[in-house]
């Protein structure tokens, strides 16, 4: 565990000092500032729009962090052969995978925590300015939704680590990870549509395609399971059952993916 933590520490430091982080933070600040500037245009919906924009800013920042900094933290090690130096130390390949993943996780958690504080300040400010339109707003629901933004990014972090183990190029890792994100975000709707019966009335879908999409839906994470934006924007209560299920689903997916990544990585050769 000491070695895993040592590796996660340097991964975290390497990530947090990356200059791209400042760019991503500035982008998020711009969205939050924009939220303050345009909030007055939305009249009665100002509360909903504020929550939606803040959570979206967190989500986009998280995506940029994991895709651009996270990919570099893992895949560049292999690309630039820094891994030769690291694996010349008594660190097993499995420890390497977990150390890198935890480092990426700490880095994303820290970055998102800072952005969440700024986001809370924005919400507080707008709540003060338009108190009458924040009737349905709930802090616990806002924090739950923000936490699940982090869970979604944590799952994507595991996907980045997994793809880094099967490719030797950071660009390919990035492309695969973005594809997994796009499929993961939309797969629930696609499967729901196919099962609804409307699909048969509207377009002809072959059985093999239907089976393929079903299979993909089990392989790719259903990222919609971590989306609590609508509930947070409308102040709707979410049961512990759904929270527990989403959290458990995310945790199991990450663990399985990292175990698979460790197995592949331990067989891999580093030329």
């Amino acid at each position, binding site marked *: 565990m*000491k*070695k895993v*933590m*040592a*590796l996660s*520490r*340097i991964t975290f*430091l*390497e990530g947090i*000092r*990356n200059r791209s982080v400042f760019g991503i933070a500035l982008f998020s600040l711009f969205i939050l500032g924009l939220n303050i500037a345009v909030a007055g245009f939305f009249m009665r919906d100002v509360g909903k729009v504020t929550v939606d924009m803040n959570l979206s800013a967190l989500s986009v920042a998280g995506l940029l962090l994991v895709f651009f900094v996270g990919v570099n933290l893992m895949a560049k090690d292999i690309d*630039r*052969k*820094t891994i*030769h*130096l*690291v*694996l*010349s*130390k*008594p*660190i097993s390949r499995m420890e390497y995978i977990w150390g890198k993943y935890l480092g990426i996780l700490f880095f994303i958690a820290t970055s998102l925590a800072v952005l969440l504080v700024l986001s809370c300040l924005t919400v507080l400010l707008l709540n003060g300015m338009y108190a009458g339109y924040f009737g349905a707003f709930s802090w616990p629901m806002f924090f739950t939704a923000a936490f699940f933004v982090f869970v979604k990014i944590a799952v994507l972090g595991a996907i980045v680590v997994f793809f880094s183990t099967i490719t030797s190029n950071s660009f390919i890792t990035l492309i695969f990870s973005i594809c997994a994100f796009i499929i993961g975000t939309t797969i629930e709707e696609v499967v729901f549509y196919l099962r609804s019966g409307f699909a048969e009335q509207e377009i002809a879908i072959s059985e093999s395609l239907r089976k393929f999409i079903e299979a993909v839906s089990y392989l790719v994470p259903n990222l919609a399971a971590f989306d609590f934006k609508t509930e947070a924007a409308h102040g709707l209560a979410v049961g512990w059952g759904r929270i527990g299920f989403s959290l458990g689903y995310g945790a199991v997916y990450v663990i399985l993916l990292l175990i698979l990544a460790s197995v592949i990585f331990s067989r891999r*050769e*580093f*030329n």
Partner: protein
Amino acid sequence: MIELKSLYKTYSPGLFKKKVPAVRGLSLEINHGDVIGLVGPNGAGKSTTIRMLLGLIRPDRGSISFRGVPLKDADIQYDIGYLPENPYLYDHLTLEELLAFSGRASGLSSAETKKRGGELMEKLAMTEARKRPLRTFSKGMLQRAGICFALLHDPSVVILDEPMSGLDPVGRKMVFDLVTDLKGQGKTIFFCSHILNDVERLCDRIGLMVGGRLLRVLKREDFAAHGEASLHLVVNRLGEQELSGLHPLLSDIAEESGRHVLSFPAKSLTAVSEQLHALNVEVLASRSDRLSLEEMFMQAVEENR
């Protein structure tokens, strides 16, 4: 201590591309306290050999054992310090943080890490730069930082892949002294280099590697004897009469680019000089013994082209 037995390794560059044999039937035994250097042109298989030894790649055939235990069962990383050629270190870390990681990964306590790290940084003149991000380091500084990283846990076996590469003369001297110091401590040192002078001065044995094959392993006695005994003079192409006059004094006559290279024992210098003067032969250049190793190396490369 380390035994490499009939190692073969072929790389597959990709689909529809021809496989590239990197190492072919390499066998080598490295004993405790040995300082052994591998020399060879680019693509000779030196780095592949090191990577197999580190477990980064697996041989297709053959076996590697460390202290009699097969490599996969031997925790070799605890005993090994490795410096790759052109080490790519983490850009945003400082040297201190890098060494802290190296210490923790090798199971050292914080106090031990600080002590060893301090000593190594002092020895390699890196103390001043210890708090600077590694991305601001020059190539030579990165090389020295890599050496600190490799040696922090005081390994008994040190593997250095082109340790002098990219270093200025001061840096080279520093690394040279460090390796000499490690040699004095009885460490087993295995390194690859293109700089024959360094290899010759540091190594007890030199392996000549070409095209994935280990062609020759020269012992210190071989090249030391060669160095003490022979001198080499380059002259214009000689005629029959001149050659017959000089022949009894020479140990070897080689022809090279339309010139003759005369080799003779150092003790015959006066006699050879007098004879050359008598025959009115002009000496164009003299060669050091180092060139002989270089010539041996070039000869091996040519033979295996």
